[in-house]
């Protein structure tokens, strides 16, 4: 009985991804001892939450059956807006941040309305939104990054302050990430809303027939995704004291890869936040480790792509064996 449980558990995408994460980590450690050095781990943990926060939101959105390609552009636009408002108009940081988030809400709302009420696929809507938002970020900055973003504000410390624990350096974003991960797990697996999200992605008309407000839920998720992308972008910009209009280029696909590698279904209905957590670590570890073991920088996307593909093949094979048992 026990061993059967174990077999089933290993077939779950979360766990098989976790096993692969372990194997890859061991390989990198063997390849270069520096991989586990405090400096490298600190770097990994500084960068990881910024994509991770977006991936959490994307997990819920994908579970509801939609996705958002505009997150990378929103990641750039929000901090660029905040920086311009603070530097050019002398606006208070808190107010500027609020306006930045308001813009994210508007973007998410527009995505949601166009997808649910007008009935255009989320691929087309958010692809167009990507171009609009990225274009806006480039235009308002005239293409130049806004440097020396050194602002004194308690909110700045809350978003990007750092502290040392022995040889390790932690950023505030790490705690944001942990908090948001717990929240995402709670919402998706334990709340009424999570039940609705899964039901909508699994069979929308069935959910609607039970009185579930599917459109409102989806619009809300699009808004949450945009706002978290804006938050992640702001955290990132404050950490490096610069807001670049081209920040976050390509993040949309990286984030979707994290979520899907973790075992969330691309066509909705089945989402796992824990799986996404594994996916986030997996992609970050691969990107980080591949450099350390000496793969030439220009070649490393080949490896990243190949590993993602291998993971998906594995999930597909496991799925095949477990369907309707």
């Amino acid at each position, binding site marked *: 009985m026990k061993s059967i449980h174990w077999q089933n558990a290993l077939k779950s995408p979360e766990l098989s991804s976790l096993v692969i994460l372990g194997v890859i980590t061991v390989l990198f450690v063997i390849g270069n001892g520096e991989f586990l050095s405090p400096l490298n781990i600190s770097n990994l943990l500084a960068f990881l939450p910024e994509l991770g926060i977006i991936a959490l939101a994307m997990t819920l959105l994908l579970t509801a059956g939609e996705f958002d390609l505009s997150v990378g552009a929103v990641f750039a636009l929000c901090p660029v807006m905040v920086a311009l408002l603070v530097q050019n108009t002398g606006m208070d940081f808190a107010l500027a941040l609020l306006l930045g988030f308001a813009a994210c809400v508007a973007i998410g709302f527009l995505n949601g309305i166009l997808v649910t009420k007008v009935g255009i696929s989320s691929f087309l809507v958010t692809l167009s939104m990507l171009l609009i938002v990225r274009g806006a970020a480039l235009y308002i900055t005239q293409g130049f990054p806004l440097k020396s973003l050194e602002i004194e504000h308690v909110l700045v410390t809350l978003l990007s302050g750092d502290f040392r624990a022995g040889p390790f350096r932690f950023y505030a974003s790490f705690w944001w990430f942990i908090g948001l991960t717990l929240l995402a797990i*709670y*919402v998706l697996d*334990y*709340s*009424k*809303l*999570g*039940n*609705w999200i*899964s*039901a909508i*992605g*699994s*069979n929308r*008309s*069935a*959910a*609607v*027939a*039970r*009185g*579930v407000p599917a459109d409102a839920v989806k619009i809300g998720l699009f808004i949450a995704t945009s706002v978290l992308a804006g938050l992640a972008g702001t955290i990132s910009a404050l950490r490096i004291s610069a807001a670049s209009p081209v920040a976050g280029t390509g993040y949309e696909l990286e984030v979707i890869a994290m979520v899907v590698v973790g075992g969330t*279904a691309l066509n909705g*209905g*089945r989402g796992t936040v824990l799986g996404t957590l594994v996916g986030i670590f997996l992609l970050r570890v691969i990107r980080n480790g591949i450099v350390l073991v000496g793969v030439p920088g220009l070649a490393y996307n080949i490896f990243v792509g190949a590993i993602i593909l291998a993971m998906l093949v594995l999930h597909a094979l496991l799925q095949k064996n477990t*369907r*309707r*048992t």
Partner: protein
Amino acid sequence: MAEDVLRLDNLTKSFGNVHALVNASLTLREGEVVALLGDNGAGKSTLIKTISGVHRIDSGQISVRGRPVTIRSPRDAIELGIETIHQDTSLAPDLSIARNLFLGREPVLFGFLGVFAPLDLGELKRSASALLKRVGISKKLDADAPVRTLSGGERQSIAISRAMQFSAKVIILDEPTNNLGVEETHGVLRFVKEVRDAGHSVLFITHNIHHVFQVADRIFVMRRGEVTAELVVAETDLLTVESIITGADMSELMGGARHK
């Protein structure tokens, strides 16, 4: 005479230039089973979708217990005590049986948290098991199993037991015996009788006239969006019903020699 639980007067519904409903009227009394018959495309599913809030009527009047109502959404219908099992099945395959049974009416703790309220997982599991036992399919099914892993007949039984649980006044079944085996079909028919005996009203769409004669009290027949006939089961026979459905000339049928 029992009261009209549900009354439809001259319902009209068009999709572009397809007139799916043309002045359709019918009544459903307390504690009776009414069968809704008609050929493919006659408008049966459309009619019940207007009652269950999937489609809004263009004109006409729906009344529940003598009171005119407006049904704008599935939620309105559910709150009026109308539960529907649609033809194109109404379960979410990725959710567990228990979560499907309570979809849209989840038991929660700390209800003031609204949609963010935590599900009462213990209560969910308990009520789901109790319900499965009541429908008589508890021995085979685990309430935590995803619906994806069930057979078509098992899914149908789950959908039906969901309609039972909140003691709806009106239960609407759109071709519930489709794709079911012999035993499951009998299960559904038995369920329809039980529900009626418990005082609920059932509107039952089917293409199987034998089933109608086993469980229904009255019959309405639809043709091209209209309700063309109302019959009392005790006062009619299979042949008559069949001919009305196809619209064949009755006198010709009666006169000519016809083999069964």
